[in-house]
């Protein structure tokens, strides 16, 4: 059997796939969140992930409050979310995970239809919990260049 060429192809494929996979943090949007498209090319960094669907707010994948509660709240920040973020921060600090506890970064994955007033409350909530570098997650548009 002449398997040498087959092996060559496999090796190249494996190398290509490994290189493509490496580097960068992968973010996963929940199924209910359809994030918009944008032309920016900044890769996501390790951070606390806050996801907002049309009905619920998740922090690190856990449902915290519903969007209706956020809308009803008269305060500038949402207490349960703030508590959760502080808890995550303390936990990260205890485990010596400087990536999260010191950079103070949060990435917001929001659905296309989420109005600005909700985003604004979530942003002020995260800055009140000490996370003041806020990034918005988007899907990369296919470039035509």
């Amino acid at each position, binding site marked *: 059997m002449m398997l040498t060429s087959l092996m060559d192809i496999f090796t190249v494929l494996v190398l290509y*796939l490994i290189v493509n996979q490496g580097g960068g943090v992968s973010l996963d949007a929940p199924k209910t969140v359809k994030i918009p498209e944008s032309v920016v090319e900044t890769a996501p960094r390790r951070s606390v992930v806050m996801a907002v669907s049309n009905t619920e707010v998740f922090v690190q994948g856990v449902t915290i409050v519903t969007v209706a509660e956020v809308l009803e709240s008269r305060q500038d920040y949402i207490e349960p979310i703030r508590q959760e973020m502080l808890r995550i921060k303390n936990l990260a600090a205890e485990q010596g995970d400087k990536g999260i506890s010191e950079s103070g970064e949060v990435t917001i994955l929001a659905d296309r239809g989420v109005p*600005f007033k909700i985003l604004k409350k979530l942003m002020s909530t995260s800055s009140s919990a000490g996370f003041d570098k806020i990034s918005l997650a988007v899907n*990369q548009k296919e470039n035509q260049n």
Partner: protein
Amino acid sequence: MAKRREHKETELELTTLINVMVVLISFLLLTAVFTQITIQELKLPAQAGGGAAPLKPPVVVEVIVRKNSLQISNGKSVTETIPNVSNKYDYKKLSASLLEIKRENQDKDDVTVLMEPDIDYESLIAVMDAVKVAEVYSPGKDKPRKVPLFPSVSIGDAP
């Protein structure tokens, strides 16, 4: 002679290696990310009382997103209003107007996007795109050239 024939008949045992490769390839293909998620970074205005503010740059550029128009303001008054075209924001015109402003102020790279409370997230991202990069169609070329405008964006409430 006999030794040489033996050498010729030797074959590499590739079956196990092929098995490993096949498993690896299928695994990597399954976990490959095809839609790449990227992030729009926001520059938050420094909290009030956060030390002495540096000398404020004289030029302020603000983009106000209204329900049915986009407005460009210099911090004090609205300088241009871009009405919606068939219920959509006219991002091209916004980019074109900002390009003019950028030409006059080459060093300026921050801009504030002010939003009304009911504007949805998708429009926010699209406005941020239009504010960060302008696509310039030069004559004789099919593809637009990307010109950076104001890469650091802060957002806030519309007055």
